[in-house]
């Protein structure tokens, strides 16, 4: 069975379009509200859905996702409930679902058990922001046979030869971190982003998606220029927190990307 992530990137490429991936924190502001939000934004043009499985100590996340993670945990969200949600979502949607979580919740569940449950639920990929390639072997071995992609991150501080090595190990796509820092809305993306992304893309056998700090349509267009897609997270959480509508935002991102 072809992984849905691969399928989406192939389709988009054939249409000459860039991927729009949206991050939402699992169970924020509540599981039903998150479910409604995901269905809404997928309908409005999101190509891939990234669901954050909250962790108590998210060191790669800025204040926005720290807040939503804490709220979701207080609301009683667990990995089990999120697997159940994916299962339900799969009855109606073929949209790729990528889980974003830290190493400890996976470790605690057990790598094999995590992979089995993710596969049964219909998860397509996993992003672990505190997992580097040197430590990733065991999780690759668990997820690989389950047909789930382990997506690695590459950062502006990554030396060029290492970029090649990470790209070679990443499955589905490569997550290029746009800036030196944590997740969260920024006023501007760093200078030299285009050069960094172009370099990474040249080295990568898999598509490259850019994330961290992408807050609006203009930034999405800028980030996507040299890439295969963009990932928007905190900007969605921010709107959910303020009860602002998501659909117009998705449409503006979509227009920016399709015009890029």
């Amino acid at each position, binding site marked *: 069975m072809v992984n849905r992530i691969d399928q989406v990137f192939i389709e988009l490429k054939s249409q000459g379009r860039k991927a729009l991936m949206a991050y939402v924190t699992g169970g924020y502001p509540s599981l039903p509200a998150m479910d409604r939000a995901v269905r809404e934004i997928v309908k409005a043009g999101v190509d891939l859905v990234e669901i954050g499985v909250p962790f108590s100590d998210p060191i790669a996340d800025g204040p926005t996702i720290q807040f939503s993670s804490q709220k979701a945990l207080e609301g009683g969200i667990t990995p089990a409930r999120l697997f159940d949600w994916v299962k339900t979502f799969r009855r109606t949607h073929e949209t790729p679902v990528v889980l974003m979580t830290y190493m400890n*919740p996976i*470790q605690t569940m057990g790598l094999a058990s995590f992979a089995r449950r993710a596969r049964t639920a219909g998860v397509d990929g996993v992003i672990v*922001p505190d997992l580097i390639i040197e*430590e990733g072997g065991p999780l690759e071995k668990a997820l690989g046979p389950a047909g789930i992609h382990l997506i690695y*991150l590459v950062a502006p*501080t*990554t*030396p060029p030869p290492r970029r090649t090595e990470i790209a070679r190990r990443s499955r589905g796509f490569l997550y290029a*971190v746009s800036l030196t*820092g944590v997740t969260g809305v920024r006023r501007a993306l760093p200078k030299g982003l285009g050069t960094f992304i172009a370099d990474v893309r040249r080295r990568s056998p898999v598509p490259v998606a850019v994330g961290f700090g992408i807050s609006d349509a203009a930034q999405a267009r800028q980030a996507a220029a040299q890439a295969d897609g963009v990932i928007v997270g905190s900007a969605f959480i921010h709107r959910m927190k303020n009860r602002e509508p998501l659909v117009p935002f998705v449409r503006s991102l979509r227009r920016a990307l399709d015009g890029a």
Partner: protein
Amino acid sequence: MTGFDRHSVPLLRDLPDVRGYFGAYGGRFVPETLMAPLVELEAAFRKFRRDLTFRRELNGFLKNFAGRPTPLLFAENLTKRLGGPRVYLKREDLCHTGAHKVNNTLGQCLLAKRLGKKRVIAETGAGQHGVGTATACALLSLSCEVYMGAEDMERQALNVFRMRSMGAKVIPVTSGSRTLKDAINEAMRDWVTNVQTTFYCIGSVVGPHPYPWMVREFQSVIGREVKHQIRDYQTGDPDALVACVGGGSNAIGLFAPFYDHKRVKFFGVEAGGEGLRSGRHSATLCTGRPGVLHGAYTYLMQDDNGQVLGTHSISAGLDYPAVGPEHAFYKDSGRATYVAATDKEALAGFKLLNETEGLSAALESSHALGSLPRLVRPMKNSQSVVLCLSGRGDKDMGQLTGILHLGSSDPKNT
């Protein structure tokens, strides 16, 4: 029993291995952004630890600035009171700044200077590492910012003032449990953001490789001195070493130089809070399970879903849900034994040392003292034990005035 036979037990020089592992524990679980600086730091440490100029400079500061070597005191009255083995106290409380933390901050800040980093950040719980970092930064003309849990800032107001008086900026951390764990989270986020200009000076044997190893090496001066100083009193090694364990840096500093001396027993004392069954404690090795926090695979206090649990201890310096990976390895391999002392036992330990020796220990070290009567019970009078008096109690006097005054008159009787 432990799965380690004589021949498979690694020597200290093989700990950690090239990947930063102590047995199954340690490693690097960090955002990719930090990988390059960690590799840079490891290379720098490998180079400068053998560099004569660097070592001479560090040793000079340890001697003339920090006041090393610290004495090894035979605690005669305490020995008599306990009626067991001879008890020696390693007087880290006499270090400049009042605790062993300065051994490490001088080393790391000198390294920061060699790496050309102008800005140093640190996290602190009890404030001793913050004060140690602020001190080293003032000495070496580096700018210093310290992350400290808002709750800890209240508990340790005196140390906040000391840091500020040395020009350091103290940043309150209001996320999560508002204690040491969250201060480390914030420091790591700062480091991820400002990695080009900033050196992260970690205060214990925790964090991603090379920190647990590097901090151990800087703190091993404690055990190396003891090895030498014990000869003023007796011919052989001490029979047992005792130290409190939060992250575990004073304990590793005392233990590691004796690691290959298998006859020397190690006892680490964790914070038992209100008792292990109460759930309100910080006894990670006594009750936790392996997991990943702050860049290392180690024992953690966590729930069934892998969420890190809130901790409690009367001492801010031990109020931490993880522990150094080398301790996790010592536990599993049976090299060290870890026990817990409750808040009450720590207070009893604090009183015991005051009354017998006229020494006021920090609340952290008071945990080691609190469990000492139990630990020496099976030992013979001809034996000896060295306890690391990791810090002095001045910083805790405000807090203690309230507790010892308000609580029932004698904590030993409650």
